[in-house]
């Protein structure tokens, strides 16, 4: 009897405003992004709250009341939580009410939704700790399962995360690493002892997250009953079906008029029609099932694009050099006593900044363009590097004092 395990990613970055060479040394407020207009931080957060966070969370609250056996999990970046506190207290309080029902698990991640694991263990551990504190503070909750930014995963990450005390970790269930095995079981990451790896069933997840409103898709239109039949067909060949997706799928990536809300409202009832189906959170899955084998993932695996690697963030020389220059400053930043310097440096680590610089336009292009507040990846790079130069200028000044 398979369990159905939902995890939704909630994240918004602090976008950098259009920042010119001539602003260097003059303007240190990188994230006051009024000049991005409707693509600025406040405007985006308010829009997404109205279109997605508020209506979807209300639906989930209703579903949890109607079906006490319905379970879900979330991962919130620290940067979205801060912005919810500032710009949409309503959405934040709905999340808090939902978590209080006890049907919800919260996962840990890096506070700044960063790729810090690949650059600095110290910085990574620091950001995870900050995230735990934020979750404790806002939700009175202690996560036991970890997810990394963009589901970026390898053996080394699992080893470190196990050391940090987590009982589970999530990754993309990409067949390339599975060698004919199914993503619908738990695995033991190579080099670890007890931590369990949950793999995203990307086919079923992406049917909802990416294909739901695609009229050219042969399964269009997708309804809850059809989707539940696909779930049922796995019965007997898996322990858990992990449906991981961006929370913004509901109402933002898939618009309300696509019928996505009706789909969500009907889904638990349809799934529960089959007596063998049951909803579980990641921790419940971990305590219910044992791992079926070891998984060796040496190269970095992510949930992005067709390549499932980090190339959307680190593929070109603009991205590589931006990341390198940013992390080179670590010692100077952490040894300073300036909280604002530390905060700015960490906000600059958010993976979105590097995603905006991606030039792999022709295969995955539309997705990248849609999310970017800049006219082109080159504009994204120009603003970022100009900001970095200003930041270095501030840091040098602090050092010399």
């Amino acid at each position: 009897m398979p369990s159905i395990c939902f995890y939704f990613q909630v994240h918004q970055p602090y976008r950098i405003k259009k920042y010119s060479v001539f602003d260097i040394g003059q303007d240190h407020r990188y994230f006051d992004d009024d000049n991005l207009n409707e693509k600025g931080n406040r405007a985006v957060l308010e829009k997404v709250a109205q279109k997605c966070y508020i209506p979807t969370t209300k639906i989930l609250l209703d579903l949890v009341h109607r079906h006490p056996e319905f379970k879900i999990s979330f991962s919130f970046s620290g940067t979205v939580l801060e912005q919810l506190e500032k710009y949409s207290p309503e959405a934040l309080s709905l999340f808090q009410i939902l978590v209080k029902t006890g049907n919800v698990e919260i996962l840990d991640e890096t506070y700044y939704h960063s790729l810090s694991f690949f650059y600095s263990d110290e910085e990574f551990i620091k950001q995870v700790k900050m995230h735990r504190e934020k979750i404790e503070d806002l939700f009175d909750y202690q996560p036991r399962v970890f997810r990394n930014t963009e589901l970026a995963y390898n053996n080394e990450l699992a080893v470190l995360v196990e050391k940090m005390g987590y009982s589970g970790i999530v990754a993309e269930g990409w067949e390339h690493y599975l060698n004919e095995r199914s993503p619908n079981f738990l695995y033991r990451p190579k080099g670890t002892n007890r931590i369990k790896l949950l793999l995203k069933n990307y086919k079923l997840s992406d049917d909802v997250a990416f294909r739901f409103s695609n009229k050219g898709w042969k399964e269009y239109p997708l309804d809850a009953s059809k989707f539940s039949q696909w779930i049922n067909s796995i019965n007997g060949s898996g322990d858990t079906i992990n449906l991981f997706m961006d929370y913004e799928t509901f109402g933002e990536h898939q618009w309300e008029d696509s019928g996505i809300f009706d789909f969500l409202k009907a889904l638990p009832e349809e799934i529960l029609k089959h007596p063998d189906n049951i909803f579980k959170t990641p921790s419940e899955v971990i305590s219910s099932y044992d791992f079926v084998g070891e998984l060796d993932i040496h190269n970095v695996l992510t949930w992005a694009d067709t390549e499932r690697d980090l190339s959307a963030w680190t593929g070109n020389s603009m991205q590589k050099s931006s990341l390198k220059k940013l992390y080179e400053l670590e010692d100077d930043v952490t040894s300073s006593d300036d909280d604002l310097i530390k905060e700015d440096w960490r906000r600059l680590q958010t993976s979105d900044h590097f995603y905006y610089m991606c030039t792999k336009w022709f295969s995955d292009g539309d997705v990248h363009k849609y999310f970017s507040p800049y006219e082109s990846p080159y504009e994204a790079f120009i603003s970022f590097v100009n900001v970095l130069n200003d930041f270095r200028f501030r840091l040098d000044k602090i050092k010399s004092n």
Partner: protein
Amino acid sequence: MKVLMFGWEFPPHNSGGLGTACYGITKALSEKGVEINFVLPRNYGIEENFLNVIHTKLPKIKMREIDSLLVAYMNSMSYKKMFLSLEDKKNTENYCGDLLQEVHRYAQVAKEIAQDVEHDIIHSHDWMTFPSGIEAKNQSRKPLVSHVHSTEDDRSGGQGANPHVFEIEKSGIKEADKVLAVSNFTRNKIIDNYDIENGKIDVIYNAVNKVDFDDVCLSRRLNFGKNKIVLFLGRLTLHKGPDYFLKAAKKALDKNRNIIFIISGSGDMDSQIIEQAADLGIADKVLFTGFLRGEDLKKIYKMADLYVMPSISEPFGITSLEAMASGTPVLISKQSGVSEILNHCLRVDFWDIDEMANKILSVVDYNELRTCLADNGLSEIDKFTWNKAADEIIKVYNTLVISKKRINI
């Protein structure tokens, strides 16, 4: 399929993108089996056998020339100036002293040609040849394609369009069975200015022949030391925005002295631009090369670290594709046709001097930006071939001729 085509310039005797486009289009069309009779007003001062040169390169294109003083991109004033300067040297009694009369004289000869030369379609390139196209059509009753590479509104930079030229342009567009525009930017201008129905205009983007630019050897490279080179290349005339280029240069030089700004081209603003550079106090940082062609042109593109096209109104902008083909990053005006089709470039509003300077400085300062723009730009322009443009034109031709004349593509 036989096409009677009227042009007004052809490489190597061209002063701008029109000649380049005519060369690219006719060569690609002829390779696909279109037979072209290409009519040109005779160029003055020809030192080489221009037609034979073309004959060897484009075997299927037959060239004809007509006695005329026309050169591309002239307005009535510059025509008079040239006409006067020629008077001492040459017997000018065959020529008329007025550009518009000259255009009409070209049209009269065109009528005779249309009588002599067998054709299925007439194709005219820009306003100077529009009266020729109309006359030919009156003669032969064959369908007319008017190809708009620029409009009077572009050439005058929005200031003081010549009403006669405007009228000629309008009638060429009205009389045409099909109008080709080099961009949506131009298409919209035609719709706005000439009150013409939408469906009659097709967009045919220009292209670049990449191999022409990739075998350039910079053996005698000038020594610019650690200076980076930022290039302007185009006619020095209002609508190309050379004055905005200089203002941005001044702003950039205030931040970074290690930049040389090169201005290649000539035009009615020659002396004004030189004086402006001096007035801004950057004369030592601005080099003027005059009008370049051939190997020199290719070299200057390749030497540059950034090509800037700050046009006030640019119907297409072939030079930016040429710069990209040379592996040079481009910063182009948003007020340009080419801006519609490029991803791997930087864009700026021509009037936004601060932003232009910001982007110039960014390309100069950040190697990674330069490399990414150059590498991706080089692959991107593979999409823009004359072969593709010719296919689009043949599709248009096919809608205008009887079925047995059609060419499969």
